[in-house]
């Protein structure tokens, strides 16, 4: 029996040591003692205490729908060709999620209905005039697509932000198509913006060097735009030459190029950085079709080109991607392949030979020094690994919460915790004497355990969280009040001190347990439904309930036992 009590004392003591160790990184200088970081990263402070970045993004869900319609249009063409149904045109409506198909022969109508209309479940036939069919994307599918594109964007953003090494970022859906991002303590707004905002849509397209639409416009060029001669090869080894446009003004260049691309192709720009740090843009005419996209990547990592001492990003494709890459490089040998990132040409190397194995690289077109380029390469590989956003995002708000407000809150929190603790400690001693003092010890331990738990599990301490800790102090005291009142009662009933003491603990337990559990129910619902700060409150409340049951019942009993063993016959209750 005695051995049992000693074990309990050791158990409590070791818990205290563990708690103190867990709290060391939060209260000691981690820069000075790097080994502290091995324990944990210190208490996480919420945005309200620490300051930090707050973004609200909106996902362009309409664009996601358009993209899907465009892609499905290609699929329909493929299907028609596979099923050998001759057709005049397949066109996506510029606005509505509709595709218009004109087939050639009335005799194919049945086959078309069975093999195409019924095949594409995402569409339904909404109109037909003669041989022209109109297919509209189903409403529920669109709704689904919109929702899933926001969810997918959240997932992607989470991966990207995780890669930044931030703790406790908050990434939640807001409304139908907005995303709220909070990065507590993060100060580099520009870097966060570029990593979060980049769509990172990677596409591989073939340069249409066989077409030369710009030579027809060589006369009467607007100021600031010049045409230059480009040379290329065709797959059968023939030489071609064409004109491309260069300008320092991106908008003007885009404006001028508008409508000049032949059917099935489009103009994209490449950004060139000239020696003086000036930017110049040159046009590339590429085929609209993207043969490979970023979602076929398995990895993207930074390598350094030893010869030129330049960092670059090396890409690995998955099996399907590697197969397509091999096919395409085989088919378009000697031609140029444009690597397009977010609709901007990154580079357009000549395909020298068929490439098997599924590796490619992205060079960084930058005049910056080695370290800056390396940082850019790292960020690019990060976003490519995390995957592209399903649709572009726009920043609705980006704000930093001033750290001065946070410091002020922490100061006030500290004062109110200290004051609350002091008053309760004194009141307990005045009212219950020595047992009040023991309850106070349990109270202090309770606060220690809550803080240690939060530090160990990386839970975020918010200002309402501090309030939660203060409240738990009141609850921890409650358990001891219940026990002490009960002991008094049993003493009045004529029991000896020892028996009254045992009975007090025994009989108060059900009340403590039931009352704490009902409070925990409230805490659980808060935790479940609450957002950022409220969640922080609920976590401290729940942890506090659990820890207060332990300190108020178990710990005080052990202290009582050893006090009496030390020869004290009667303890003031």
């Amino acid at each position, binding site marked *: 029996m005695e051995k049992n009590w000693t074990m309990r004392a050791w158990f409590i003591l070791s818990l205290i040591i563990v708690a103190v160790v867990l709290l060391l990184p939060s209260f000691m200088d981690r820069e000075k003692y790097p080994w502290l970081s091995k324990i944990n990263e210190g208490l996480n402070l919420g945005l309200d205490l620490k300051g930090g970045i*707050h973004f*609200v993004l*909106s996902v362009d869900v*309409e*664009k996601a729908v*358009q993209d899907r319609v*465009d892609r499905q249009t290609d699929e329909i063409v493929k299907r028609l060709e596979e099923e050998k149904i001759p057709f005049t045109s397949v066109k*996506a409506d*510029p*606005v509505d999620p509709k595709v218009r198909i004109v087939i050639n022969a009335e005799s194919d109508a049945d086959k078309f209905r069975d093999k195409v209309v019924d095949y594409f479940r995402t569409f339904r036939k909404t109109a037909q005039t003669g041989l022209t069919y109109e297919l509209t994307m189903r409403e529920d599918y669109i709704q689904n697509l919109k929702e899933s594109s926001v969810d997918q964007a959240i997932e992607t953003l989470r991966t990207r932000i995780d890669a930044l090494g931030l703790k406790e970022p908050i990434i939640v859906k*807001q*409304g139908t198509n*907005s995303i709220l991002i909070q990065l507590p303590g993060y100060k580099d707004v520009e870097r966060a913006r570029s990593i979060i905002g980049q769509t990172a849509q990677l596409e591989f397209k073939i340069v249409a060097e066989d077409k030369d639409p710009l030579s027809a416009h060589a006369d009467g060029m607007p100021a600031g735009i010049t045409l230059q001669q480009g040379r290329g090869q065709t797959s059968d080894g023939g030489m071609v030459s064409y004109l491309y446009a260069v300008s320092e003004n991106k908008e003007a260049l885009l404006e001028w190029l508008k409508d000049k691309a032949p059917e099935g192709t489009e103009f994209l720009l490449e950004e060139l950085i000239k020696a003086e740090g000036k930017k110049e843009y040159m046009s590339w005419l590429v085929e609209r079709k993207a043969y490979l996209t970023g979602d076929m990547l398995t990895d993207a990592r930074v390598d350094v080109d030893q010869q030129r001492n330049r960092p670059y990003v090396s890409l690995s494709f998955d099996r399907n991607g590697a197969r397509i890459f091999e096919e395409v490089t085989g088919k378009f040998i000697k031609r140029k392949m444009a690597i397009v990132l977010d609709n901007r040409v990154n580079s357009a190397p000549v395909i020298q030979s068929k490439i098997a194995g599924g590796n490619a690289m992205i060079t960084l077109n930058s005049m910056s020094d080695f370290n800056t380029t390396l940082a850019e390469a790292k960020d690019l590989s990060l976003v490519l690994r995390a995957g592209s956003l399903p649709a572009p995002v*726009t920043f*609705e*708000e980006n*704000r930093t*919460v*001033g750290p*001065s*407000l946070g410091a002020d809150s922490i100061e*006030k929190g500290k004062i*109110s915790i200290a*004051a*609350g603790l002091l*008053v*309760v400690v004194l*009141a307990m001693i*005045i*009212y*219950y*004497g020595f047992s009040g003092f023991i309850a106070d010890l349990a109270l202090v331990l309770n606060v220690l355990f809550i803080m240690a738990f939060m530090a160990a599990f990386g839970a975020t301490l918010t*200002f309402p969280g501090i*309030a939660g800790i203060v*409240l738990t102090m*009141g609850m921890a*005291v*409650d358990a001891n*009040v219940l026990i002490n*009142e009960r002991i*008094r009662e049993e003493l009045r009933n004529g029991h000896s001190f020892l028996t009254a003491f045992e009975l007090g603990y025994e*009989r108060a337990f*059900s*009340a403590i347990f*039931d*009352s*704490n559990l*009902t*409070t*925990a*129910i*409230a*805490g659980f*619902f*808060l935790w479940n*439904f*609450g957002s950022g700060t*409220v969640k922080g*409150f609920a976590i401290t*409340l729940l942890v506090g309930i659990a820890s207060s049951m332990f300190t108020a019942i178990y710990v005080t009993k052990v202290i009582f036992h050893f006090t009496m063993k030390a020869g004290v016959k009667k303890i003031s209750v």
Partner: protein
Amino acid sequence: MQLIKHDLNIDFVGKFKMFAIISTIAVLAGIILMVVIGPNYGVDFKGGTEIQLKVEGIDIAGVRAALSDFDGVEIQQFEGRNDEFTIKLPSIALADAKEVDRYIDEVGKAFPETALIKKHFNVEVGDRIELWFDKPVEKEKIAEMVKQYNIPVTGQLDYNQVGDRHIYKLLLKSFTSTVIAAVEQKSGSKAEIQRVELVGPKVGAKLRTDTFMAIIYTLIAMLIYIALRFNLQSAPGAIIALFHDTMITLGFLVVFRVTFDLTIVAALLTMVGYSINDTVVVYDRIRENQNNTKKGNTLLEKINTSINETLSRTIITSAMTFIVVFTLLMLGGDIIWGFAFTMCVGIVVGTYSSIFIASPITAVIDKYMKKEQAT
């Protein structure tokens, strides 16, 4: 030390009628205040913009004058901090939707050869106007026309082309930057943003329903727990007490114009947890005394004894918790003030209800059920 005599025997159940009348009046007052005046919803629930600024060389009257053009603007200042202002605006988009519609109509007419195939202005966000045409149009004309309308554009006009879609995006100024510029101009010094909160009206409405549901679920879960751990007769008393506490506290929040936001909900739910705590302690004692004839012959007497026996504990604990929350109220600063206020009121009301309302109701229900059986 002992404050409450242990041999106390107050007839709480016998005086139930009087307390029932007092409580009914208080609860009704709470409901009427909630319905007629309603809580002072914060941006969390109402939607809108809340900006906290630190700026020197201007007083609250100056800020008010600088922002007089904004409809429904509210400006608050915290005690002891003369250079900090909280500015609340009822919406998050600066542009008036009707004005935008008028502009879009005119733009559509301005290019008769081209079809305006789609327009897009999201009131929830209000950051841009999108115009989609089937052919490219004169960019300058779009930019020029918007100047004739009361639409706060940034001057940036983006163009991109997707297939046959020609999309022009006019970016609009955000509320925050406009408000800050106005205050800075008036004060002549740089403003430091302490905090910005933006909640769209739809999000606010959703939060309201979510919160309401969370409270309902909590109550149901507690009801089930009490019915399981004690008995069915006890559950109604506990839940009536909780409803009672919530309504009266809400009444106080309305009277004191406390900003009703998510932290207040946290406080309400915790308060509910505390109040049921007290009630459960009494119930626990009733359960224990059930088969003890020394504690009274009828259930009514037993309930009375149980309330008296636990009275000391109820008052000590409530006093201790009250001290803690009261310190928060006094020293915690303005962010936590609403929370602490709610808890202070809640603890007083909750303690009252667990002594005078919850358990006596159980006795009344029991008496009624016995009568039913007798007849």
